[in-house]
């Protein structure tokens, strides 16, 4: 099977926007592949949580937001982070613990923050970003600006109590928050049906009076539309939306996890639905992109990725005397 005969449906997004979305998705894909190749080859040490298969789920949502909107993501956040506008250098730098990383290497893989781009926080704790998103939403409400906050979390995070507290509060206060559930059907090695009887995770929002949408996360246009609708609702002051984006996991939980416990046929099906070629092929089929252009673009991005990685690898790690800075504001007498 091939994804060439895919039909993403009609869409009235300007072609430039479609191309930008595609470029971002392709960048995420190539950056990830390059980084994992480096890890397998032992070019550098590190650990990594792959996003392959969820590029559309991430980019589709964030494309529907404004640059000054806020976002919170998880350890599996590279797609969100690049979509939100962080540079490849800043991402690679952080993954590698270098001073050129967006947090100068102190946060690392699971803790990327790029406040200038609205990427406010990355959590390594399942579900914990959701109550924090409410606070960002509240800040917009109290400051009287119309920024929207998106927060992504995995399907497994729906088992976490904090999410439900967050949903209730967001509903009560009509907070401009989009709860983006990246449902890849797995929490580590446990499949969705192994940890809940909830058939459709977006149902969890219903008792709180929050609209719960479920979309095909391999179709970036469908994701975009749902997110645009949620963002509009939030910006209007009508409150939160729960957006479940289903994008089956293709790789293991972390780099190095072979996913041997996953059903092969399902993984194969997920590969067929791989959102990145799906969008690329569709753009070609629609005449928005020539087949050669796609190749050229791929080459171009691969070069950018290579350059950014080289920049990161060529930059230093913080010197030991930076160990004790940034615990408190500068000048505070920090315990030894």
């Amino acid at each position, binding site marked *: 099977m091939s994804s060439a005969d895919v039909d993403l449906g009609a869409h009235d997004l300007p072609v430039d926007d479609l191309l930008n979305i595609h470029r971002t998705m392709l960048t995420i894909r190539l950056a990830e592949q390059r980084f994992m190749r480096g890890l397998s080859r032992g070019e550098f040490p590190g650990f990594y949580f792959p996003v392959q298969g969820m590029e559309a789920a991430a980019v589709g949502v964030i494309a529907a937001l404004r640059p000054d909107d*806020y976002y*919170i993501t998880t350890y599996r956040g590279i797609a969100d982070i690049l979509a939100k506008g962080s540079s490849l250098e800043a991402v690679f730098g952080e993954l590698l613990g270098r001073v050129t*990383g*967006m*947090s*100068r*290497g*102190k*946060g690392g893989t699971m*803790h990327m*923050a*790029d*406040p200038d781009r609205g990427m*406010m*926080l990355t*959590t*390594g*704790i399942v579900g*914990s970003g*959701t*109550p*924090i*998103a*409410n*606070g*960002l*939403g*509240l*800040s*917009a*409400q*109290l*400051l009287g600006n119309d920024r929207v*906050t998106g927060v992504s979390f995995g399907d497994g995070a729906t088992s976490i*109590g*904090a999410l439900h*507290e*967050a949903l*209730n*509060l967001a509903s*009560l*206060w009509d907070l401009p928050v989009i709860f983006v559930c990246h449902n890849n059907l797995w929490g580590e090695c446990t499949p969705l049906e192994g940890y809940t009887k909830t058939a459709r995770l977006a149902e969890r929002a219903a008792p709180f009076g929050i609209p719960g949408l479920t979309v095909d996360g391999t179709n970036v246009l469908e994701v975009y539309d749902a997110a645009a609708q949620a963002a509009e609702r939030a910006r209007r002051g009508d409150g939160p939306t729960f957006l479940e984006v289903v994008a089956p996991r293709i790789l293991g939980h972390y780099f190095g996890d072979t996913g041997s416990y996953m059903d092969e046929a399902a993984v194969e099906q997920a590969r067929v639905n791989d959102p990145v070629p799906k969008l690329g092929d569709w753009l070609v089929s629609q005449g928005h992109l020539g087949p050669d252009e796609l190749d050229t673009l791929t080459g171009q991005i691969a070069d950018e990725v290579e350059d950014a990685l080289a920049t990161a690898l060529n930059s230093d790690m913080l010197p030991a005397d930076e160990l004790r*800075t*940034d*615990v*408190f*504001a500068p000048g*505070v*007498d*920090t*315990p030894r």
Partner: protein
Amino acid sequence: MASIQPTETDREMTFGEAINDALDVALGNDPTVFLLGEDIADPPGGVVRLTHGLSTKYGTHRVRATPISEQAIAGAAIGAALGGLRPVAEIMLMDFMTLVMDQLVNHAAKHRYMSGGTSHLPLTVRTRIGHRRGAQHSSSYEAWFMHVPGIKVCAPTTAADAKGLLLSCIADDDPCLFLEPTPMVRSRRRSPVPEGDYRVPIGQAAVARDGSDVSIITYGQMTPAALEAAATLADEAISAEVVDLRSLVPLDHRTVLNSVAKTHRAVVTHAAARFAGPGAEISAMIHEELFGELERPVHRVAAAFTPVPFAQSLEQVHAPDASTIAETVREVMK
């Protein structure tokens, strides 16, 4: 942000009124300050009325009653701080802080560091300790937070310090935990509190009573007991200095060490359990820094290593009081 001494413009306030006044001043001066917590809006203006009148004055958008959702409260405070506000969250009691450890420890305290200093969280969490309502409403876990890099901890005793430290916490660019001892909150005693935006710097201890024979190091709800003990001891010709730490992080080593270097004897007392409690750090620090200068080992007078009992017969002997402190001081003076 130097410590302002009480002036002519002081007003007599209870500890609770001083907290209310601090919040009032902060809300009045800084539009980015807001409060959130359970039952804090009018009525009732807080279960012990510490926020009384504030939602009426500033609106329920700035003094926000929340559902019973401690994790959501803490998370909202963090997010709001990220969004440019200065939230002041109330967690009703220290025992309920157990519900926000992930938000506070994993997220709030670590954020500045994890972001390499590119982002920080100016937020304050107020909570009450020493409530005396059985094992799940009375605990003193401040030692936990001392051990968490990235969060400051204040534990005032006097009304003026309550106001001055709370205003400093709210203005601070780091997460601050502000402890309000129930005995102080319940007290009807009034004392002078400076008007306006009065600040007490975080991290400065106060010598609550001068003395030369022995140093009693304490904070929060035990300070009055330490002072009472010191007064009793004065009658026995023992001159006890009382150091009220006021902040536990940063801890004012200098004031503690100066006092003990002078007296050569120290008693540390608190209402938290002794084992692995705040006094462990203080005792270790004194011994390590003033090795060879002490006449006697530091003594710790602290709560028994038990949950807080309900029966009054046990509750009364669970934590130290003026008489157990005085007894220990006499021991140390031998």
